[in-house]
């Protein structure tokens, strides 16, 4: 094959390729991108999100697609690295020509991808719980997870109902813990409660006995912990050893069965503010979200034969949002069309709350129902508090 022939063949192949893409675009299908860390340190989030994404796409296609449109998934692993995530979002936009992207699941990646999504005008439904991603709202970016504001408010309201108004908090000295401390303090003030003592600890600290002793001296009625493990487990153990009897309320940072395993006896009788998916089988029938949570948990466990995580809800609600937005569109699909459909109002009961997306609410949750519930650990199990 000489040079000219070779180039000719290449051109032909390129033409064919283009033809194929334009054919695909014109056909009745939804090209759905998914970006999350399924490996690396953030894989504990991304792995189960990816599984539920695959599950739902399979279900749609088995039922003839969304509103008659076949769902074509394109998924990439970001490894939790925002540079990788940015490259892959560009790939989804430019090469894979997706209509909408679900992901990512960490705040760091979401902050980077938000800019790209706005520039490229592609709807991005992140699975993060960071309020600043969607407040103030920007035209193409949405989120599904409950925010620190929701959870802190829920913890404080729970305490207030119990009559505990003199509160101590202990938070990790990292981004997650600092945000938690800020929201707890601000919301306590709104609710007329008092934060008597705010303690911190390093995310890699090994002993929080001094902080526990200070909190014991402070005469508080309840202690709120805001951190991811191992800190909260160490605090629970130190508290048990020190005979710290004050009620303890943990944030959603530890809402997983791993807490029961790691903290064991020392977690007994403590509380955790969590997404409903931690206890899909124990929700009261009166809970408006019970049907959707129980359904996805059942399907997930049946397909993958492993316990469901609370993060499943983040991806479930994101895909559900895409489904309802796409169903509102009668003509050809476009990125702008999907973004506008969401902004024109999409409401549904999700795993993470009563979702009510609108032009002003890009975060999802409405204010009528808390996206999280309180559970207590009794006999080594999570039960509704």
């Amino acid at each position, binding site marked *: 094959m000489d040079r000219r022939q070779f180039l000719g063949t290449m051109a032909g192949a390129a033409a064919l390729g283009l033809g194929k893409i334009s054919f695909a675009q014109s056909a009745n299908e939804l090209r759905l991108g998914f970006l999350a860390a399924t490996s*690396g*340190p953030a*894989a*504990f989030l991304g792995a189960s999100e990816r599984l539920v994404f695959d599950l739902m796409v399979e279900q749609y296609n088995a039922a003839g697609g969304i509103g008659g449109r076949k769902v074509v998934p394109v998924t990439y692993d970001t490894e939790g690295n925002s540079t990788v995530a940015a490259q892959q979002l560009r790939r989804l936009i430019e090469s894979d020509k997706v209509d909408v992207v679900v992901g990512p699941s960490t705040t760091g990646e979401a902050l980077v991808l938000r800019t790209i999504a706005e520039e490229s005008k592609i709807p991005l439904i992140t699975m993060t719980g960071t309020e600043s991603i969607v407040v103030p709202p920007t035209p193409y970016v949405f989120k599904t997870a409950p925010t620190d504001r929701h959870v802190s408010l829920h913890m404080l309201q729970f305490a207030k109902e119990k009559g505990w108004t003199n509160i101590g908090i202990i938070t990790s*000295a990292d981004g997650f813990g600092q945000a938690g401390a800020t929201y707890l303090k601000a919301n306590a003030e709104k609710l007329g409660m008092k934060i008597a003592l705010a*303690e*911190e*600890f*390093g995310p*890699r*600290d*090994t*002993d*929080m*006995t*001094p*902080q526990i*002793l*200070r909190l*014991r*001296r402070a005469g508080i009625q309840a202690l709120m912990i805001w951190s991811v*493990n*191992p800190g909260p*487990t*160490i605090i629970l*153990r130190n508290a048990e*050893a*020190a*005979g710290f009897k004050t009620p303890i309320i943990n944030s959603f940072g530890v809402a997983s069965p*791993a807490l029961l*395993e*790691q*903290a064991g006896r020392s977690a007994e009788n403590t509380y955790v503010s969590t997404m409903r998916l931690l206890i899909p089988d124990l929700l009261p029938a009166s809970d408006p979200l019970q049907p959707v949570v129980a359904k996805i948990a059942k399907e997930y466990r049946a397909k993958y034969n492993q316990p469901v995580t609370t993060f499943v809800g983040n991806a479930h609600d994101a895909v559900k949002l895409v489904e309802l937005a796409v169903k509102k569109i009668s003509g050809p699909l476009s990125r702008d069309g999907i973004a506008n459909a969401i902004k024109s109002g999409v409401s549904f009961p999700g795993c993470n709350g009563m979702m009510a997306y609108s032009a002003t609410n890009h975060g999802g949750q409405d204010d009528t129902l808390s996206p999280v519930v309180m559970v207590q650990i009794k006999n080594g199990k999570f039960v509704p508090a």
Partner: protein
Amino acid sequence: MDSFLQNLISGCLLGCIYAMAALGFTIVFNASRIVNFANGEFLMLGGVGLAGVVVTAGLPLWLGVILAIACTAFVGVLMQVAFLNNARSADELSLVMLTIGTGLAIRGAGALIFGRSVTFVPDFGLFPMLLMGDVYIVSQGIWIALTLVAVGIALWYLFSRTTFGKAMKAASQEPRAAALCGIEPRQAAAAAFAIAAGLGGLAGALLAPISAAFYENGVFLGLKGFAAAVAGGMGNPLGAVVGGLIIGVVEALSAGYVSSGYKDGVAFIILLLVLLFRPQGLLGGVSVKRV
């Protein structure tokens, strides 16, 4: 008063772990005149190794501890024999850089082999929790304190009573003269790495039930151990123990009475003050050269 005592105990126990990390720095420094910045990773490896063997593989705890120490010691020897011995440049600064690189590699390998999860290992048990009025020492704390005592005695015996220990000292002071006496300086250095790493593995294993085993733990444990070794006097084993205890206690007291947010800062302020006013360390040692 009770909470002061409790803070003191809490600090001492943490200090025991720092002391073991500091001893690792000291032993390697005495044998090869380099500061091994991978030392913290030995503690990490002991913890995640124990967690992997006991929690994941389900082997008995005592066997897990032995395996954790042995594997970590092996990694230490490997590091000395494979990297430091074969380094093209014997310049101290480049060897220290090499230890930093090896530390990163160990951390990566730890994450790869044992995973990135945070794992608590069961208590070693045997001792009940000690209660004196409102003051208590947790069972694992008794293990930690007794282990430091035993390690201290064993090291003292090794370095001042056995010929091999003296040969290690000699090989670090005068490597050529030691070789001319029939001592193999590389063997002595490898032994020092084995001891330092095994000790790190032991400390990491002791810590795993109290705080969790996690592949990123090596960094802060290494820094605290280094601070303790320098504060006590680099190269002085007793100084390493005293330095570790001081940093542990000061951290606990500053968390208990000043502000928990500043306790790490307080530890490093001590280090800075010591370096400013007593560069040879509290108990004396080799003063740290400016590099």
